[in-house]
């Protein structure tokens, strides 16, 4: 479940990312009324096994069984809620009707990880964003130069050029990153948690800034939830 919109008096339009049919928009009838049995299952961050029938304009949900109930654990932790909001908004923006099993599995795994508090919220979000963008075809380079392919280490990151770049192709005045921050970004992309969690606060916040800039560059600054991310808790 990615997001919901109120429709009429008691219904919602729901957007969900499916395992094999891409993004689906459908109507959930009566879910805002008190007696609805669907209500709690058709909320963002939930994983459901849903059935639909074809409606006139949008499909209508007829059944929904819960497969993963992450909503209450996520809303119980405000930082996790803001991070999960960015995840579902990103998934909504970078997927379409074609379907991507990889995007689906990545999102479900990231929401489950947030709900179970497996890793610090901020790192979980940054790792999700880097990987979601990579699956979408925008894998950043943190090793070789993104322009010339010269082997690293390089310490200048330029979102527009697709990753770290050699000094001689870097635009003048590009900020230089700590080499540990570059290593952290590489760990977040590959999912090396032991290494990522060993990074200090300054490196983590520098990496978060890079990930945010890289994400907004590719999504044309359209992510509204990103500015509301709460990074106050570890």
């Amino acid at each position: 479940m990615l997001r919901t919109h109120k429709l009429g008096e008691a219904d919602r339009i729901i957007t969900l990312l499916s395992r094999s049919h891409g993004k689906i928009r459908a109507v959930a009838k009566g879910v805002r009324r008190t007696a609805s049995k669907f209500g709690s299952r058709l909320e963002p961050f939930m994983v459901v096994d849903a059935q639909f029938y074809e409606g006139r304009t949008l499909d209508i949900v007829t059944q929904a069984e819960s497969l993963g109930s992450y909503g209450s654990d996520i809303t119980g932790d405000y930082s996790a809620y803001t991070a999960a909001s960015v995840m579902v908004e990103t998934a909504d923006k970078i997927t379409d009707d074609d379907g991507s099993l990889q995007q689906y599995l990545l999102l479900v795994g990231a929401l489950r990880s947030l709900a179970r508090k497996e890793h610090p919220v901020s790192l979980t979000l940054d790792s999700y964003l880097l990987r979601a963008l990579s699956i979408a075809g925008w894998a950043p380079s943190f090793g070789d130069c993104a322009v010339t392919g010269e082997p690293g280490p390089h310490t200048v990151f330029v979102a527009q050029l697709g990753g770290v770049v050699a000094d001689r192709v870097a635009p003048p005045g590009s900020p230089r990153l700590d080499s540990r921050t570059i290593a952290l970004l590489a760990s977040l992309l590959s999912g090396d948690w032991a290494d990522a969690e060993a990074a200090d606060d300054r490196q983590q916040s520098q990496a978060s800034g890079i990930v945010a800039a890289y994400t907004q560059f590719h999504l044309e600054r359209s992510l509204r939830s990103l500015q509301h991310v709460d990074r106050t808790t570890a």
Partner: protein
Amino acid sequence: MYEGIVQELIDELGRLPGIGPKSAQRIAFHILQTESVDVTRLAEVLTEVREKVHFCVICGNVTEQEQCSICRDPRRSHATICVVEEAKDVSAVERTREFKGLYHVLGGAISPIDGVGPDDLRIRQLLQRLADGTVTEVIIATDPNLEGEATATYLTRLLVQPGLRVTRLASGLPVGGDLEYADEVTLGRAFEGRRVVEP
């Protein structure tokens, strides 16, 4: 598509919450076929409501005066504040007759995906009302859905101060629903069974 002003009316009606293009068209034609005196009255009320009604300077409820009737009522307890998302939730809670304190209307729920963060709600005003220590209990009565729960979590973390009890309505309210649709009995029970929440 209809000619000029008729289409304009349909477009304007279609902008209202919960009104799709079909309903907008139905209402537009209803207005066209209605006695002109009734339509004039509707137009007057619409203009009047925009001119006269605004938000209570204390709690954010709708009122025709500077302060709403609840904030002005000397019989209401000033020790308890019930926090709700919308002004219509105030009437939902009032219908239960369970609550004798004051309200605070946030103006929505925290929803990052819709671009709504804590600073976009009347949270700062709530903190100001708590500053002098008169209030000893804040009851968080946000909607029992995702955004409402997350807003409650945020407030619980924010409202930690000595001498203040923060409570949340008892579960039993249907998850995923809107507070305004809860019946009086269920909502009344949720008030009675409210529990202290800790960050």
